């Protein structure tokens, strides 16, 4: 007998018992609760990361000013209200680490994979609820470890979030490379364990536990995105673990995997010889590049779902969306070298990586165009979630286009590690992914908490965040093009960079306003958990399966049998239906399934119908090739 059946059975035995506080809120094995835990931890970490960024933005805008409150806040790291250069580096590093790993990896994909995979696929819970719980608690431990690194005497890890050795390996090279770096490594190791546990669960649930009728080609795009994300994580995080293990040995045991030919002031020539710092970069970016997509793809998935629902229109090119996700996932493993064009890598290798990198632009372009076409002739409801999704598309386009510069080895010579890079990734994976996360929160808040968020506050939150995000990151392109390097503590010492002082001030002011706008969100989020308007069963009139579960959380998700799925997830505005949506779980014998436009009865334009039909042949062929059905 399979263990799965045992799990399922035990759930039923349990769900009539009263859960204790501990088992309900702390060591919960219910995927919905775990998703909330991920979300709230993610939000807290996000606020920490945001505040850190504001502090170093202050330094960049007013390098000669003294901020008394900084001394109160940071003590010896801001004597007389002037930020210490070492701590500046620490802030940059921890801000990057928090945002990349803790907010946008765990906070985003941890939250929504956990919430949506079982709910949208029709499963009682994850494949292994216990592993799921472990995953959260490893993540929590990891967060605590990382934050504790800020409080050690020698300061937090401060070699940049990529922690390149030798800088990160030698305590004598930088104070942050002492205990702070050790804690950073410990935190990342825990984080890897957490994300592997989670990833295994996601993949296994998606492959194995779909309800009746939920074939792969009826899965919502969110699930596709989470699925590919989990695969990427599963294949790339172990490599980071390998890199971290070598680094730990180099730091603490005197090996020289990454160290060679080093002479340190005051220490002399080190014993280490024969190591290769570039080896670390290869290992790191083998994770690092897929990591970018681990961050972005769940956001894209959420966006697909939200845009389709709120445009009251089927997502355009479902298959193309899936294939482009697949293409992006595959390509992301073979392009890591574009982070290393100027590390002295063999130029030929550089050109290979350049070609592969620019190929990624094609599936990305397909995605962007498909979003645009989904909006075209839609009937757009601007719920906050919808606005954030459109914001994501906007960021995805403007940030993605600059990737074409950076993926080009020749152009990278000038732009590498300049503010252009900062602008690029903050738009395309920072802002875009965080907007995807906001979209997800606004959209599935009723599902998570059974209550509604305030829309008006949501609108203010969106517009202020959106405009300030552009104000912060757009001018950075110009700074980067003028050769302003990133990770500089101040720019006043270099004549050439002085012209950017006013822009730096603008950016900081915009960042502060944008940061302030997040208070609206926090209020909206936490207040409405308790006081919000009670949610309706299907508040957005969405098609997907999660809206068929009761509003009040129950263990096992559905009180009775798990509903069967009859059609694809994006049957909005079907001409033959009175309502403009048609849930996946709604049986309708009279109308045979019109899966992806085999017929469009009363379309206005006959020419279009032909095209659509013609297309469905192609669609069927693709399905057969990829074995989707």
């Amino acid at each position, binding site marked *: 007998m399979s263990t799965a059946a045992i799990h399922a059975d035990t759930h039923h035995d349990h769900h009539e018992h009263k859960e204790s506080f501990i088992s309900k809120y702390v060591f919960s094995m219910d995927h919905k609760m775990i998703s909330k835990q991920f979300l709230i931890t993610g939000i807290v970490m996000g606020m920490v990361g945001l505040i850190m960024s504001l502090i170093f933005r202050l330094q960049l805008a007013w390098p000669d000013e003294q901020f008394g409150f900084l001394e109160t806040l940071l003590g010896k790291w801001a004597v007389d209200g002037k930020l210490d250069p070492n701590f500046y580096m620490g802030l940059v590093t921890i801000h990057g680490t928090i945002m990349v790993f803790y907010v946008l990896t765990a906070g985003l994909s941890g939250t929504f994979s956990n919430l949506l995979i079982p709910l949208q696929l029709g499963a009682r819970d994850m494949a292994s609820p216990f592993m799921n719980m472990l995953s959260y608690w490893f993540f929590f431990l990891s967060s605590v470890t990382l934050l504790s690194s800020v409080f050690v005497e020698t300061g937090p890890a401060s070699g940049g979030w990529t922690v390149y050795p030798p800088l990160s390996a030698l305590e004598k090279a930088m104070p942050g490379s002492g205990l702070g770096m050790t804690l950073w490594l410990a935190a990342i190791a825990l984080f890897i364990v957490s994300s592997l546990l989670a990833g295994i669960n996601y993949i296994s649930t998606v492959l194995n536990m779909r309800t009746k009728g939920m074939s792969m080609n009826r899965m919502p795009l969110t699930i596709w995105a989470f699925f590919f994300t989990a695969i990427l994580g599963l294949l790339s995080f172990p490599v980071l673990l390998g890199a971290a293990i070598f680094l730990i040995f180099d730091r603490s045991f005197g090996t020289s995997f990454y160290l060679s030919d080093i002479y340190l002031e005051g220490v002399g020539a080190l014993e280490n010889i*024969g190591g290769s710092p570039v080896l670390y970069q*290869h290992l790191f970016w083998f994770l690092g590049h897929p990591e970018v997509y681990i961050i972005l793809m769940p956001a894209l998935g959420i966006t697909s779902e939200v845009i389709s629902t709120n445009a009251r229109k089927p997502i355009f090119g479902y298959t193309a969306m899936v294939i482009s996700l697949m293409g992006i996932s595959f390509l992301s493993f073979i392009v890591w070298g574009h982070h290393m064009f100027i590390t002295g890598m063999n130029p030929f290798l550089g050109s290979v990586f350049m070609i592969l990198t620019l190929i990624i632009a094609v599936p990305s372009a397909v995605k962007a165009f498909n979003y645009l076409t989904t909006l075209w002739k839609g009937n757009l409801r601007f719920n906050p979630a919808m606005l954030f999704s459109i914001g994501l598309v906007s960021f995805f386009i403007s940030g993605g286009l600059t990737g074409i510069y950076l993926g080009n080895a020749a152009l990278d010579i000038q732009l590498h590690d300049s503010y252009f890079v900062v602008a690029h990734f903050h738009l395309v994976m920072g802002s875009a992914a965080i907007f995807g996360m906001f979209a997800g929160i606004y959209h599935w808040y009723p599902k998570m908490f059974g209550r509604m968020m305030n829309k008006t506050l949501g609108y203010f939150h969106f517009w202020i965040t959106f405009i300030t995000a552009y104000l912060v990151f757009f001018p950075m392109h110009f700074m980067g093009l003028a050769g302003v390097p990133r990770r500089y503590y101040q720019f006043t010492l270099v004549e050439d960079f002085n012209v950017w002082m006013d822009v730096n001030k603008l950016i900081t002011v915009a960042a502060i306003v944008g940061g302030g706008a997040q208070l609206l969100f926090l209020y909206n989020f936490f207040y409405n958990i308790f006081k919000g308007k009670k949610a309706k069963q299907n508040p957005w009139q969405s098609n997907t399966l999660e809206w068929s579960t009761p509003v009040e959380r129950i263990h096992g998700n559905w009180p009775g049998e798990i509903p069967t799925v009859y059609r694809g997830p994006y049957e909005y505005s079907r001409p033959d239906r009175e309502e403009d949506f048609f849930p996946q779980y709604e049986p309708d014998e009279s109308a045979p399934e019109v899966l992806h436009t085999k017929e469009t009865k009363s379309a206005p334009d006959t020419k279009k119908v032909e095209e659509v039909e013609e297309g469905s042949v192609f669609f069927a062929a693709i399905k057969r090739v990829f074995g989707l059905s």
Partner: protein
Amino acid sequence: MVKSKKIKDPSYPVAPAKLNLWLFMLASSMLFAATVSAFVVHRPDAESRQAWTAFDLPIFFLYSTIIVIASSVTAYYAYKMAKNDELAHNKNLLLGTTILGIGFCISQFLGWQQMVRLDLTFVNARPEDISASYVWVITMLHFLHILGGIILLIATWVQSIRLNVHKKNMGLMTLTHTYWHFVGVLWIFLYLFFYFAQ
């Protein structure tokens, strides 16, 4: 909450635990792929001035290989016996596999000792002995995997004593059996790799 009637959930195509195990094995293969390719990348080419020690692998690593193959055979028969409901054989074979697994650990220890005697230590490695450092790191990582396997074996053995491993309850047995083959194959791969790639 609704009073649950006898709800029959659909059974899953694959046991989730089994699928999870396969995914875990995939992930840990990636870990070894990474460390092994680091070794390959690091090895200097002919014209480089860099020092790089090539050494014969300790003979005990060969013994380990033999032991691991033997244990794979016993694990396979243990699985087969359980499937045929021959519980006594199953129990003994599981015990045998566990003992072989422990034997493997001992053999690894002896192998490491031999490396130390050759002055190929891990902690105070001479610069050109990075090759040895790699061998240390990778074999130790593998050793951790073996320890996990032994714990699984013991757990299965205990279940087998309690007569819980039989034709209709193959879940744990299948996991153990699969995982043990995995660590076995992994070791054989690593051994061959270090044998030929030095």
